[in-house]
């Protein structure tokens, strides 16, 4: 990284290297408000869809090529082959998921096969813990995989939050308690929202309080708590600014996941800047009665859940499209484990190993990642699906491609490197389109062969300078640091770049400025 060192010595900066939690973090001046701006796309949102209980993914994403052997293993819950909704000739979705199939055909779904981890743990609590902390099976880690990323970005949270610069919840769990995925070192980064009417569960049911001294005081305390919850105020303001537009949402109360995603879409459309949302759907722990005890096996516990999942995601995507927010949102499902290949006599399945992750959004690189699992002709009760993709590959790839976290930080966050999966489509532009005309940044000479000068106005805050291809692909991080307020000039070594046209982006707190340049 010689370029960076070179720049440190030539321009007047306030930067000093900084040791935080044993890691050298990008140069950052000491300041009373530490705010690394690693999420330079504040418009990008990630939706974590937690399937509680351990989803029998083998019955959701069905390897048609293995159908005959599947019959041997689990005939009492397997649907007829003709009913499977084809994604490709070899792989299809359970018939309860036509909406998701449709979305796949629109190019908005990626399915990663065989997701899991080495030395799988088949206990609900422990495996969930592993998945949510992003750790090894043998190591107990108390922070969440998203929490660690947020920890780097907001190290002082919750002290001083919310504040004028960060008034929105950093992460938001729709449910009863903060998601463990967002646990940081000092605090959990996720706020909690049950529904829009209240953030506090008091014994009073929907605002009715007994007319007693106790009732009076309970009402008083609850009211002040609600007013105080400033995140709640901000959330309600955002909710009030927009309305859901999709007609595909089921009636409220019929599909809890759809209700949650509907709320999330409302908040995103209303301008809530929260970047991580966690929603959940439970009931996947189908030890028995996984499907109806009839000839078709099309209905029952898991098909009902799969239908809910399918409808919820489809309605959500439809809504985001109508709200013009689809390009900003990516979501993915996770569960604590898959289930046993061989079904049991109660028309159910026991705890297993790997599962398929469903990743959805208009920016997603569509298709199937990984192969159909091979199902042996004779399956024992102890046989389990093989590992193809470590679940941390998904986290690492999202860190990198969606949140643009540096590789070195990714290693720190996950404790290791994991193979990258192209989750986000390379073809889509990763930058919002900003008008190029600006009089504040100057780049010369242009075209450039070797060395160029860049002059820009610093607002005294952290500035990040990067170079992109015209397709939007990131080529290089030049620098991210706090410059002194005022006009700054830095020198850029560009001789190593291939000839072509590039965009240089100067990202400041106050906004972006770009300039096109040509390398000859």
């Amino acid at each position, binding site marked *: 990284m010689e370029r960076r060192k070179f720049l440190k010595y030539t321009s007047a900066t306030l930067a000093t290297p900084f040791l935080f939690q044993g890691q050298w973090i990008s140069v950052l001046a000491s300041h009373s408000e530490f705010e690394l701006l690693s999420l330079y796309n504040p418009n990008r949102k990630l939706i974590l869809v*937690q*399937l*509680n*209980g351990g989803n029998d993914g083998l019955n959701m994403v069905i390897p048609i090529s293995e159908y005959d052997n599947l019959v041997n293993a689990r005939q009492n819950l397997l649907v007829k082959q003709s009913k499977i909704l084809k994604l490709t000739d070899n792989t299809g979705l359970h018939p309860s998921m036509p909406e998701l199939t449709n979305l796949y055909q629109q190019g908005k779904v990626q399915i990663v096969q065989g997701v899991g981890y080495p030395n799988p743990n088949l*206990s*609900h*609590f*422990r495996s969930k*813990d592993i998945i949510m902390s992003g750790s090894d099976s043998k190591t*107990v880690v*108390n922070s969440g995989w998203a929490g660690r990323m947020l920890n780097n970005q907001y190290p002082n949270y*919750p002290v001083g939050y919310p504040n004028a610069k960060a008034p929105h919840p950093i992460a938001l769990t729709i*449910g*009863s*308690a903060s998601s*463990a995925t967002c646990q940081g070192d*000092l*605090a*959990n980064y996720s706020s909690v929202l*049950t529904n829009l009417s209240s953030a*506090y*569960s*008091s*014994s009073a*049911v929907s605002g009715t309080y*007994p007319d*007693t*001294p*106790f009732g*009076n*005081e*309970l009402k*008083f*305390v*609850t009211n*002040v*708590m609600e*007013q*105080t919850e*400033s995140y709640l105020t901000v959330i309600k303001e955002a909710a009030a600014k927009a309305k859901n537009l999709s007609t595909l949402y089921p009636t409220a109360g019929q599909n809890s996941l759809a209700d949650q995603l509907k709320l999330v879409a409302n908040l995103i459309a209303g301008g809530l800047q929260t970047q991580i949302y966690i929603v*959940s*759907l*439970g*009931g*996947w*722990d189908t030890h028995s009665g996984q499907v109806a005890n009839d000839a078709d096996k099309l209905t029952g516990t898991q098909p009902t859940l799969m239908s809910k999942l399918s409808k919820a995601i489809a309605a959500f995507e439809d809504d985001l499209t109508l709200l013009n927010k689809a390009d900003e949102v990516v979501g993915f499902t996770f569960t604590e484990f898959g289930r046993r290949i061989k079904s049991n006599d109660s028309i159910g399945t026991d705890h297993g190993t790997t599962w398929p992750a469903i990743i959805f959004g208009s920016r997603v690189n569509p298709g199937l990642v990984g192969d159909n699992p091979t199902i042996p002709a004779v399956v024992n009760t102890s046989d389990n699906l093989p590992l193809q993709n470590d679940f941390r590959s998904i986290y690492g790839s999202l860190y990198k491609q969606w949140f643009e976290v540096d590789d070195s930080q990714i290693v720190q966050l996950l404790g290791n490197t994991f193979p990258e999966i192209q989750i986000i489509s390379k073809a889509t532009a990763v930058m919002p389109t900003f008008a190029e005309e600006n009089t504040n940044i100057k780049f010369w000479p242009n075209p450039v062969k070797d060395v160029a000068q860049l002059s820009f106005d610093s607002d005294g805050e952290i500035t990040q300078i990067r170079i992109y291809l015209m397709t939007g692909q990131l080529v290089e991080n030049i620098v991210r640091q706090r410059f002194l307020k005022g006009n700054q000039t830095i020198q850029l070594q560009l001789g190593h770049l291939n000839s072509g046209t590039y965009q240089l982006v100067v990202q400041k707190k106050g906004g972006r400025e770009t300039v096109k340049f040509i390398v000859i």
Partner: protein
Amino acid sequence: MGATTKSYSIQPISGNLDFNQARHLLNRSIFGPTKAEIDSLVGKPISSALETLTQTPTAPLPPVNYTASDLDVPVGQTWINAAYNSTYNSYRLQSLRVWWIGLMMQQGISLVEKMTLFWHNHFVTETGTVTYATMLYQYNQLLRKYALGNVKQLAYDMTINPAMLIYLNGESNNASAPNENYGRELFELFTIGKGPLIADGNYTNYTESDIKAAAKVLTGWKNDRTNSKSVYDTTRHDKTTKVFSAAFGNTTIQNKEAEEYKLLVDMIFSQKETARFLARKIYRWFMYFDINQTVKDQIIEPLATTLFNNNYEIKPMLVQLLSSQHFFSSDYFGSHIKNPIDFTIGTYRKCEIPLSDNILNNYEIWNSIYSSCQAMEMTLGDPPDVAGWPEYYKEPAFYELWINSATIPSRTSFSDTLCQNGITKNGFKYMINPFILTGKISDPSDATTLINGLAQFLLPVPLSNEQITQFKDVLVPGLPDSTWTTEWNKYYSDQNNTTQKSLISKKLLALLTSMLRMPEFYLC
């Protein structure tokens, strides 16, 4: 049982205490009763419970110095006899307050601590004004000595208490230049209280001229600051005959030198209105702030009579209030907003947070509790002014004043910390050990039993089914209750499995975090 939802009867309840009643009694009598403490009163008649509560414990050992920076006092020894030193005084003040918090935290089933705090809020002094640590210690000793004793005697001693003489300018009150400060507050705040203003300077219960006369009675006292004692100086005393108004039957007080102030106290306490004033204050401290006409007639009046007829011994009145059917009306369970001391110390006690074997660590944590209470607008030893904390007198909000958009985050971050990361002092971590609490529950493997078991002693009212469901969602999200049973039993059958133990612990702490954030937890 004698318990109803709303009764205005001063008659005692009959029968033996059930769990809800025992919890209510202790929630109001001590800070954060534990489940065991509540259980110890279940099945007992109220008289027996109150006998325990009103026993006066032996006086505690004095505070000790715990910093090497106080060069006059070895670490671990008391500073109360050391000469005043302006540099070391601040360490001694710190020692005094952590000592006090420590006593409150380590209290047993005794009304002494709540009553000591009551008297501090009644016969107010402010540390910031008095400053002398030794004098403030003596002041605390005095409150403690008569916490469950004779109010008149307390008033005698308080009148010539060194800290009070500084605070309300008793020291500067002399014959040639009387200072009315103490005299005024004695009438208005400490004893009889103002009545309606019926004429210029006439507050029904006393007049401005009474204040002037009282000031004269009180002349002659000053402090020997070196020895932390008050001394009487006859040359400073007004030896004229002091004449009081018709409110006191036109009593006159002749010169009686160092004993004269007692006559003033006797005069005021001979008015039953003094007993009523004190009864109202005790009522608001233990019961509820709203004193309507029915309460005045059926509760306050008999309490005042009891106090008066017992020559101002406080115990009989306390017993009468705390055994009454009115007190045990279930409409009032949970109607009291916990003050910050009750909230902070109560949480430590109720959740049985272990203390360190090293007293120095404990001093540090007690000091942090002092700071937490300060953030919650209750600075121990320093009420905002001589009227005490407004939450106990300011109409119409009263204790609702404890709760606002600044103090709530202080409270939630306090409880969150004790449930999540804890506070570490020199390697010892203060935080909730959830297994101590589950050990008190009959069958923690059952999710409903666990949740209800915790709620039963943490909260003043039972949980609704909706709330139980929400807590199950914290414990086993999207999973059947049987999952909790499986996971708990896995831990229980092999408690050496640290991974499983850590998982169960995390779940329990998440549950406790939610419970302590409920509005119900702010009530007792």
